[in-house]
């Protein structure tokens, strides 16, 4: 397609979207179902009838509780995507969405609130569009920012409940700490692979918080994201939907201070589907966020005294000198002279099987470590390798390959090892876009 016509196409999409939004506004101003937070309009009776006749919702009274509820959802990804439409559908009056990410094609197998036409669009805006169409009575507020210590209080204030749909320990501690300081209940969930976990934290400002469960953060090396570890869409989706159930129960007052028991639910999708509920510890008196002697306060958070980056740490992959690295374009030249060079791919074998460069040997990082510095053992996997071989190491993004380069040089004493900067994906981006990325 020529540049001009693709520009026109983009313009057309933009105009269609604008048109849709304007129609939406018109619809809302002209025929709004809502009549104020203290009563329901006739169309609202019709819309929510099927849930109002479930006796445990409390009928009209329960519906009014939902209507006046203000729920903040942090993250419109794998958890937020399936959760948000149910909150809007149920008639939660105000929904805030915090997310500064844009929609990527690789999100769509699980983040089903977005669609292929919205690639590149802010996730919070994409979600807002869908919710507006699903239920125009709901007020949706978007925050296209990355949640951090300096903006969290400003965003959280005014909401009743916060849903933690984030994807790192750092944001999970932050969400919990800020919620504790504002006395908000947190519905917290997470997922990876085929499993998910869900909990209600700081319930009515008396239940345990995230730090009660996890006073010490996990070592950064043990933390995997969905893009690294992979995730099955409906497995994380079901956990997102379970978050909506918990949120509705909290709003309707199904949980009370008297009957609420701290729990952690664990969903497993494979091989047989199970949901288990573990009974958990209560609020810990020695907890630094919600205990008797608190040091995590609005002041210490906002001033940066509580340093989440230092607390959670991060993996250091920058362990190679510039001369120990090779660019993907130089790699391309070396590929022509592969007789003497060993090109070693250290990704897990199920990654390698999806796509890899020709003339590569796959020895996953974990296996490489297990060879215990033995060149003999290494030769059983790569017969042609010697201590004087030229070795180029590649992985997905150029992180693990740096660690592998160090390992081969320092522990196997192979002298000429270089890391392919940016890994296979950079090679695909810059040299050969015909190869599959995943």
């Amino acid at each position, binding site marked *: 397609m020529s540049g001009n016509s693709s520009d026109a196409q983009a313009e057309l999409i933009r105009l269609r979207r604008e048109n849709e939004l304007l129609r939406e506004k018109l619809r809302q101003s002209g025929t709004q179902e809502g009549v104020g937070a203290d009563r329901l309009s006739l169309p609202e009776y019709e819309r929510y009838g099927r849930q109002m006749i479930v006796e445990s919702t409390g009928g009209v009274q329960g519906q009014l509780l939902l209507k006046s509820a203000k729920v903040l959802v942090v993250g419109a990804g794998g958890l937020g995507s399936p959760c948000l439409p149910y909150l809007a559908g149920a008639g939660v009056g105000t929904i805030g969405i915090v997310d500064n990410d844009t929609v990527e094609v690789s999100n769509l197998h699980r983040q089903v609130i977005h669609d292929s036409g919205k690639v590149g669009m802010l996730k919070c805006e994409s979600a807002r569009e869908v919710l507006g169409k699903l239920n125009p009575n709901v007020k949706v507020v978007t925050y296209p920012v990355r949640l951090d210590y300096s903006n969290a209080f400003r965003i959280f204030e005014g909401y009743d409940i916060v849903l933690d749909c984030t994807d790192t320990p750092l944001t999970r501690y932050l969400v919990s700490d800020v919620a504790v300081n504002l006395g908000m209940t947190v519905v917290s969930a997470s997922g990876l692979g085929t499993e998910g976990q869900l909990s209600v934290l700081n319930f009515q400002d008396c239940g345990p918080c995230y730090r009660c469960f996890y006073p010490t953060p996990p070592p950064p090396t043990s933390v995997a994201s969905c893009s690294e570890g992979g995730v099955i869409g409906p497995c994380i989706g079901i956990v997102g939907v379970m978050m909506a159930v918990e949120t509705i129960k909290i709003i309707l007052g199904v949980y009370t201070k008297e009957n609420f028991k701290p729990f952690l639910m664990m969903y497993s999708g494979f091989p047989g589907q199970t949901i288990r509920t*573990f009974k958990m510890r209560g609020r810990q008196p020695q907890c630094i966020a919600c205990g008797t002697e608190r040091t995590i306060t609005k002041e210490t958070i906002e001033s940066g005294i509580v340093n989440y980056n230092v607390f959670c740490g991060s993996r250091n992959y920058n362990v190679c000198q510039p001369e120990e690295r090779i660019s993907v374009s130089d790699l391309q030249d070396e590929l022509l002279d592969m007789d003497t060079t060993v090109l070693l791919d250290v990704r897990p074998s199920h990654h390698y099987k999806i796509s890899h460069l020709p003339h590569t040997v796959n020895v996953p990082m974990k296996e490489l470590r297990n060879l215990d510095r033995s060149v003999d053992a290494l030769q059983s996997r790569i017969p042609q390798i010697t201590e004087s071989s030229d070795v180029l190491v590649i992985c997905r993004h150029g992180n693990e390959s740096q660690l592998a380069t160090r390992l081969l040089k320092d522990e196997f004493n192979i002298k000429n090892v270089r890391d392919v900067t940016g890994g296979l994906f950079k090679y695909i981006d810059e040299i050969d876009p015909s190869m599959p990325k995943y």
Partner: protein
Amino acid sequence: MANVTVEFLGGLDVVVQKQRVHKLHLPAEVVSVGDLIEYIASTLIKNPRDVAVFLEDGGVRPGIITLINDTDWELEGQTEYVLEDNDVVSFTSTLHGG
């Protein structure tokens, strides 16, 4: 000499040959959950490198929740808990993806 079930959830089965559930007939000297943890590290985990995924400074690594019969071990005496026949001890990694 208790028969207990030990589970490794949340991806933690990588340290025990990808087998989530292990039914164990424990030797007489394994009395408490603390003993069981040592037993797992010395017997069940075959690759010594994987012990560091399970233990840190001699205790269960931060980020792993330990449950005794589906109850947080904090409520059950942690390592001191004395194992009984048919107990289920579960270890689960905390997930962070979203």
